[in-house]
């Protein structure tokens, strides 16, 4: 009877609405876990001759923050940055600093522009990724010359182009996050 009136009355995208609820482990765990997994990229079997792989952990952080403003607390930059620093080859502290500053900057940006669209988000992400890569190179304790910054260009371009795809992946993870799997007794 109800189904005939409204197909979404009992079920929606996230599963049955009856006797089921969101599971806290998924709701809070998925964003953190996806960013931590993304910071394990150095363990991928790629021995790169130059910096080529996009900073996936940072991009996942940006995507979660832009897509779901409330889901990561403002202090998340410290633990997530620490995870990233342990494997990325950067001196410890570089990602902690940059992740924390990014989260603060995005919060202030959101106060100024509460309503945004796809293009604004992409531009913001592109600017932040550029800053992240440049500052990471400066912090990396490598002997920097002009060649280094030329080499950043392909990495930067790839990262900026990849960002909407990461946002897509995060949107899919978000759907997983909000699945109603907990049974209410």
């Amino acid at each position, binding site marked *: 009877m109800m189904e005939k009136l409204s197909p979404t009355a009992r079920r929606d995208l996230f599963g049955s609405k009856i006797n089921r609820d969101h599971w806290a482990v998924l709701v809070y765990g998925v964003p953190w876990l996806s960013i931590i997994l993304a910071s394990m990229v150095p*363990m991928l079997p790629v*021995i790169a001759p*130059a910096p080529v792989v996009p*900073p996936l952990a940072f991009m996942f952080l940006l995507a979660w923050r832009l897509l779901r403003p409330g889901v990561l607390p403002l*202090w998340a930059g410290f633990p997530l940055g620490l995870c990233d620093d342990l494997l990325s080859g950067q*001196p410890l502290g570089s990602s902690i600093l*940059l992740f*924390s500053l990014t989260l603060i900057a995005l919060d202030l940006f959101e106060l100024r522009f509460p309503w945004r669209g796809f293009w604004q988000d992409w531009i913001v992400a592109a600017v932040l990724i550029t800053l992240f890569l440049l500052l990471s190179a400066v912090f990396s304790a490598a*002997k920097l010359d002009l060649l*280094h910054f030329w080499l950043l260009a392909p990495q930067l371009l790839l990262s900026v182009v990849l960002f909407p795809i990461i946002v897509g992946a995060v949107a899919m993870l978000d759907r997983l996050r909000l699945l109603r799997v907990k049974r209410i007794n």
Partner: protein
Amino acid sequence: MAPPAAQRSGINRRAQFGVFAGYLLASIGAAIGALLLIVSLVRPEAFAGLRTMASDVSASVGDAGAASRVGTSNFFDAIAGYYEAGSKNARMKEEIAIARVKLAEARAVEQENEELKAVLGLSQDERKPVAIARLIGSTSVSARRFAYLSAGRNDGVKVGMPVTSPMGLVGRVLEVGRTSSRVLLLTDSESIVPVRRATDNVVAFAEGRADGSLRLRLISLGINPLKIGDVFVTSGSGGMFRPGIAVAMVTELNDDGGIARLLSNPAATDVVLVEPVWQPEAVAMLRRPPAGPTDEGIKEVAEALPERRASPPPPLPQPEASAGAAAADE
């Protein structure tokens, strides 16, 4: 998307306090990050324990992937091979003809080498590798060039040991964990290896460049004697790498040396060998800060002075004598 209403505090005191606490915590996090960054820039080895613990945990995941890497690269090579089969065949025939001649020459040189060594009474020292391991992954995001190795302290790997592949030198061990370790690749900008030309004794330093090539800096200035195609091997100075490991081939010339391509591309190497440090005493001595006169040195100088032989060595020798003692000690 607009932020959820809960984030905006309005006039609610408690919400205002929550927002303030959030900013405070985030700023503290950033400040700690900056502090840690300064510490690790001043002392790069500071957080090695934390890092190796993390790599130990994640190495088991990486190791499984590393086995598949070489397989897939072969697969693509096989497809690419069909496109240039004809020209490659002709070129290889020519190369084989040249290689046969070179092989004969090399045999002659080897024989001569053995004879000369027999004359000098040198024994051929066969060094067994400490461990055989895989390169798991590398820091492909960062500007630094580190790789992770699937062997650690449990396998006998120690800091400073050279990592080689059958094609040549790959790098040296920088930090050691229990089951994994971190390797400084030759292409890192902090890596410097003393090398010499394989054919003669033109010595140079091979420094890593950002783009995966090496920069050769000749030690003796003058007319640049390098030619494109020269192969450089480790010279053994510094005592870390044994002499004669292939390092790089010159591809470009410039004023004070050249740009060289790495012979043992770490991306194409599957299994690597961890070798013992060639001359551990020499490396230890170079690391040690210049010390004052040692007891043996004082004794040696005292014995060298004929008129003082009977008397006990003086407690504090003259500065000139101490310098001489240190020199004699080394």
